[in-house]
């Protein structure tokens, strides 16, 4: 951390460099956004946008379970609930003939309702609103250690499984014909996703964490023409909107998570326009 603080003194403008919490937040953003950029590519390619929405909202139930069990830091029960949800949805996908859209809708309702019911006992829900909006400026060095560990885990995981994930996203049958266990690949991916989302939710908040996961990849998809550029653009857009959003939120005095998402939406709009212009010039 000491090294980072010294480095940040050089990089940041003077008025920002005075605050330790800004340096912490910036480091957290620089670590979290590339993870989201990378994982987002497969969320979008596999049509899992609604699933990650449910995953994010399951945090409410996780927090509630943590309180019922008398655990002070709800991160672990949140992860536990999210992982159970991820595995359950993956198993259901294989056996149910019902539309996954509907099944996920039921899960979403259940997770939110259960969480709110427990948390609102004796009118106490207000103290949990920080989870809804998130607070990146309150990030602790302990959380940054967690995020750094995840950063490396995701990198190693992606290096080993990325190819299988891409093939699975193009065609599950094609992947299976090449002896790839698509169930294992998809389940491990959703578990990792569950852990990442739960660790990051304190920073960006339940309401918008999904946008952060989806928007950079969706924007990249509009313009990328290879697997490598898809990933690279997604990471770049994620980091760019993350840093600009963080600084803007400081100067405007707004919630960082939401401000970051606004910048990501801007990137998406630009990419969609670029794709349109390019398409017109071809025809």
């Amino acid at each position, binding site marked *: 951390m000491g090294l980072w603080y010294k480095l940040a003194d050089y990089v940041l403008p003077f008025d920002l460099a005075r605050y330790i919490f800004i340096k912490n937040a910036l480091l957290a953003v620089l670590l979290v956004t590339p993870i989201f950029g*990378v994982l987002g*590519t497969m969320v979008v*390619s596999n049509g899992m946008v609604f699933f990650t929405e449910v995953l994010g909202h399951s945090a409410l139930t996780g927090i509630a379970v943590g309180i019922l069990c008398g655990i002070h830091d709800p991160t672990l029960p949140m992860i536990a609930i999210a992982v159970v949800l991820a595995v359950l949805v993956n198993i259901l996908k294989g056996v149910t003939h019902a539309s996954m859209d509907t099944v996920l809708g039921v899960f979403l309702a259940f997770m939110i309702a259960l969480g709110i019911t427990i948390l609102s006992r004796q009118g106490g829900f207000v103290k949990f609103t920080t989870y809804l909006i998130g607070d990146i400026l309150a990030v602790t060095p302990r959380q940054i250690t967690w995020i750094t560990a995840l950063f490396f885990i995701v990198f190693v995981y*992606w*290096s080993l499984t*990325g*190819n299988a994930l*891409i*093939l699975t*996203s*193009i*065609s599950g*049958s*094609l992947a*299976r*014909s*090449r002896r790839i266990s698509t169930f294992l690949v998809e389940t491990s991916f959703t578990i990792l996703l569950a852990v990442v989302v739960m660790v990051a939710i304190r920073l960006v908040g339940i309401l918008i964490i999904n946008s952060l996961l989806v928007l950079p990849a969706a924007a*990249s*998809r509009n313009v*990328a*023409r*290879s*697997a*490598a*550029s*898809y*990933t690279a653009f997604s990471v770049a857009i994620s980091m760019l909107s993350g840093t600009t959003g963080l600084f803007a939120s400081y100067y405007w005095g707004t919630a960082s998570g939401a401000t970051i998402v606004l910048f990501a939406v801007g990137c998406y709009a630009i990419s969609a326009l670029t794709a349109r212009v390019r398409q017109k010039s071809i025809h």
Partner: protein
Amino acid sequence: MLSQDNKEIGSSADNKLCRHCCIKISDLTVRFGNKPVLDNVSLHIHCGEVVAIVGPNGAGKTTLLRTILGELPYRGAMESRIGGVQGRNPRIGYVPQRLHLDLDSPINVTDLVVLAISRQPVWLGVTRRLSEEARQVLSVFSAGHLAKKRIGELSGGELQRVLLALAMTAEPELLLLDEPGSGVDIQGLSLFYQLVRSLRKQHDIAVIIVTHDLAGIATYVDRIILLNHSVVAEGEPDEVLSNEKVLHTFGPSLWNVSALPSIKEKL
């Protein structure tokens, strides 16, 4: 030579697996709930043979395909004999249906081939050496010029050739083609089937083509198996096309293949 052997054995219900290599399916039954989608289906397919499995929509063709790919539980037996060794599962090269692919994907053709021929993570970029290797694989299938295109930008015929190149990188003993005719114009399809026919000679592989288009496929295959939950008819194309049960199942769609023998001579 092999195909001669196969002809002698024919498609009769011989109990032993043949000498060389083949895949044999006996009394295959697959149920979705209480409904049997496949009911006691028996097939025997030899290496070097191109077989079409034809049936109307909902006849269980895709189910059969998925069962051979090992995706569905089944009752019955699937045996194979590869290079004289009995029991080993054949390596399968699978060409999926265009409709079942994510055509919106930013993945390009080179990426797709590199995914198959290398363990190097493609999301980190493709080295020049691998990209050259991919181009060579593609050029065998007249698809070298497509290397930089996104898979969604390919025409039906181009996509089929790329997918065929991809399937062949698995060095398959059994090639499974799922509705290769959908979205492909006649010229593209003819080029595609000629490639398939030359492959089965060069590599001595068994080829199964699953399609609903009896008229379109008849000129390109050695044998046709008509499937409607169970095997309705089976035999050489001319035989099957003159079968009354076939006319009953397929109706008027068959009339436009009356020119069949003359087309076949041209090939």
